């Protein structure tokens, strides 16, 4: 039971700077993170559109683009190096600044304190620092485009020795790669501070009656995600420091001897490129669970609310969240099956990887169990939640293929893993963000998003992402190679070209459709239908306060919790839902 009694609420800020820019209020910080992610996602989307252009029509000249990017389109068609730079930055920006930021930094910051009945996070000033360091980090990352040589070309995974050698190894690997590393290091620091905040807040600042097993599943996922971040980001930071030392300090942590690159003898010697892979992926695997877990929490929240049923198997869901988080630390080797791991370690990594399928399946069946027999309200948020489950299955199942060493040897570095991780991160996790947006927007802004345009956006996006990524699996099985700027060099890959074109066209349409979301978002902020405290008839604590919430969340009162988070359809209650703060129901009546 927590030591409830929140540290006194910080005074309501009066100046513009303290209120909107350097705010310590978790709600403002949450919105700031959300908009940061929104900017990042459109940058990332733009990069992917350019990538798709090259893949579908590799030899085509684009005069307009040549005017904007003269070095990247030197002589007409996009150069392969530019493609790799786009690819690197697309991956980095999307994984870090969208998927690690919006669900956790955005919604987590805004709603975690409210959902547990607190006035704010445990460390409001640290919270503000976290956001601004993330902001600077994005700035540094984007700056990599504008230095001599441009953005790095080593992928979001920045494998050594390519990333460690400097300019001699290719464009963008000089100043661009340095900025990339610095940006990521800053991002690590910001994430660590944020994780500290989340964990301390959940452990120590829950309101009276809010026991751990009465917390909404969204809080459980934000909590577990924070633990993952706390323990995995430092290893990335360690790797980044070693990489920077190799590049600038003359060390050879990752650079082996005997390298001759671009007719230059590399003086470094003795290092191990595989060390980078271990360090990176020890972080990298928990990172992808950081990206998906909050979406799972949101899905549980939405499915329960809009099916008017308690979440099926709440306790199993909590255990599954922990199991996924814990197991996620022991599977990093499945990204390295072809790097020369011993068969024994490959076997261990493979078995543990497949084991993660168990808690994932439990969650999936429990979501279906929540829907079964429910009185479903098909709001936009609900469509996204159901879409999340669908895409989680589509994307997750192919993980089981890749988790088996024998199959992975064939599929590694093809489009198959690209399709897999896009399905699960680029789409399922994204649907979690969309669903959260449609659900919580009324609370954050006091107005409803337009439901009709929301549903239209959902259907185009849902069909679109399937059209983009399902064929990509086939391309991978056919042997289509990832990180190649074109498939046309190899005769055996010629059959791939029609697929590339189809995927690109589907991508353009789906990308264009996202403008609908953007317009809906901004228009509704100012002109949307005004809403009440609880438009969805939902049970958790954020729906007991005004929309938008007052500065200290609970208007001077701290809630006392009597019920679990998903009390829908409770016998003996006057309505089909019971708020967490409602008086206890007298079962003897």
């Amino acid at each position, binding site marked *: 039971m927590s*030591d*409830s*009694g*929140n*540290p*006194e609420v910080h005074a309501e800020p009066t100046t513009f700077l303290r209120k909107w820019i350097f705010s310590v209020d978790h709600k403002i910080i949450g919105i700031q993170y959300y908009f940061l992610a929104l900017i990042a996602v459109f940058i990332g989307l733009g990069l992917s559109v350019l990538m798709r252009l090259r893949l579908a029509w590799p030899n085509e000249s684009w005069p307009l683009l040549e005017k904007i990017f003269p070095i990247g389109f030197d002589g007409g068609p996009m150069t392969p190096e530019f493609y790799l730079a786009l690819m690197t930055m697309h991956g980095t920006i999307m994984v870090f600044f969208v998927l690690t930021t919006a669900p956790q930094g955005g919604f987590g910051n805004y709603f975690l304190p409210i959902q547990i009945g607190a006035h704010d996070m*445990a*460390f409001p000033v640290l919270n503000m620092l976290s956001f601004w360091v993330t902001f600077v980090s994005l700035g540094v990352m984007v700056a990599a485009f504008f230095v001599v040589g441009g953005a790095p070309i080593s992928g979001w995974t920045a494998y050594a020795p390519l990333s460690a050698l400097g300019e001699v190894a290719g464009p963008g690997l000089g100043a661009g790669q340095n900025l990339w590393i610095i940006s990521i290091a800053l991002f690590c620091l910001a994430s*660590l501070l944020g*994780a*500290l*905040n989340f*964990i*301390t807040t959940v*452990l*120590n*600042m829950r309101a*009276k009656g809010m026991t751990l097993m009465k917390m909404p599943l969204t809080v459980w996922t934000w909590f577990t995600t924070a633990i993952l971040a*706390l*323990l*995995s*980001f*430092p*290893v990335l*930071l*360690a*790797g980044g*420091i*070693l990489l920077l*030392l190799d590049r600038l*300090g*003359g*060390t*050879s*942590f990752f650079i082996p*001897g005997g390298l001759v690159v671009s007719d230059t003898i590399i003086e470094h*010697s*003795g*290092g*191990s490129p595989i*060390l980078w892979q*271990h*360090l990176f992926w*020890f972080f990298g695997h928990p990172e992808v669970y950081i990206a998906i877990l909050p979406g799972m929490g949101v899905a549980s929240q939405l499915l329960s609310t809009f099916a008017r049923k308690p979440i099926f198997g709440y306790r199993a869901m909590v255990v599954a969240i922990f199991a996924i988080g814990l197991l996620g630390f022991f599977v990093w080797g499945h990204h390295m099956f072809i790097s020369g791991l011993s068969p024994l370690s490959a076997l261990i990594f493979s078995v543990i990887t497949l084991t993660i399928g168990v808690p994932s399946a439990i969650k999936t069946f429990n979501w279906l169990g929540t829907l079964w027999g429910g009185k479903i309200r098909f709001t936009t948020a609900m469509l996204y939640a159901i879409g999340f489950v669908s895409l989680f299955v589509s994307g997750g199942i192919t993980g089981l293929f890749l988790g088996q060493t024998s199959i992975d040897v064939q599929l590694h570095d093809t489009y198959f893993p690209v399709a897999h991780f896009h399905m699960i991160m680029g789409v399922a996790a994204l649907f979690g963000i969309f669903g959260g947006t449609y659900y919580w927007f009324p609370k954050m802004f006091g107005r409803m998003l337009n439901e009709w345009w929301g549903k239209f956006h959902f259907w185009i996006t849902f069909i679109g992402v399937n059209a983009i990524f399902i064929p990509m699996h086939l391309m991978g099985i056919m042997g289509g190679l990832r990180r190649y700027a074109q498939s046309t060099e190899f005769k055996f890959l010629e059959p791939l070209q029609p697929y590339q074109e189809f995927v690109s066209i589907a991508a353009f349409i789906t990308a264009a459709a996202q403008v609908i979301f953007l317009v809906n978002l901004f228009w509704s902020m100012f002109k949307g239908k005004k809403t009440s405290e609880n438009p969805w008839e939902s049970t958790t604590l954020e729906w*007991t306060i005004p929309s938008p919430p007052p500065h200290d969340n609970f208007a*001077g*009162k*701290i*809630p*006392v919790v*009597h019920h679990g988070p998903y009390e829908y359809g409770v016998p003996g209650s006057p309505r089909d839902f019971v708020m967490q*703060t*409602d*008086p*206890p129901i007298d079962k003897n009546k």
Partner: protein
Amino acid sequence: MGSSLVSSKEGDQASYYSNEGGVTQSRKRNSRIGMWLALASISMMFTGFTSAYILGRGTNNLWQPINPPNYLWINTLVLLASSLTVELGRRATKASELKYWITVTCLLGITFLAGQLWTWNLLVNQGIYLAGNPHSSFFYLLTGVHGLHLFGGILALLYLTVRSWLFSSTLTQENTVLSTTALYWHFMDGLWIYLLILLFFWR
């Protein structure tokens, strides 16, 4: 026990729960949990460095262990002493006692950091640099990162020292910054011992 406001939202069921002692206790507990979490993440970073060290030692054929300059052992004693003094400061019952021990700790900490730089200087004079030899690379890396974290601790100690001299009545045993800094400082000490063992007894 301080003020206790009661207001109800849903009839008589909800009650507002707040008191002065509760607020301070809660904030202190927040800081303690936060510091333990920070220490967990710092440990993970050094775990990453350790795995790099182990792998390097195992596979790098240029590995040539360097000999620790003798001054390093003296410096270690300095750091251990500072851990003792920070603990004495934390447990001090009188403001003057606290003031004395915190100042001594701060000075010892600065001495240690200066000592680390001196050790680096000794190595450079022997021709041992960051690059060239993997073991020396790790020496500079690990002592450097440790030193940076220690510097953060020194900043906290400086704050406490200044406060203890200027506002001695407000700095009491319960002060959250004091106990949190002491915890951090002990961890830095323990980390240093670990790094010494890694660098010079397991090479």
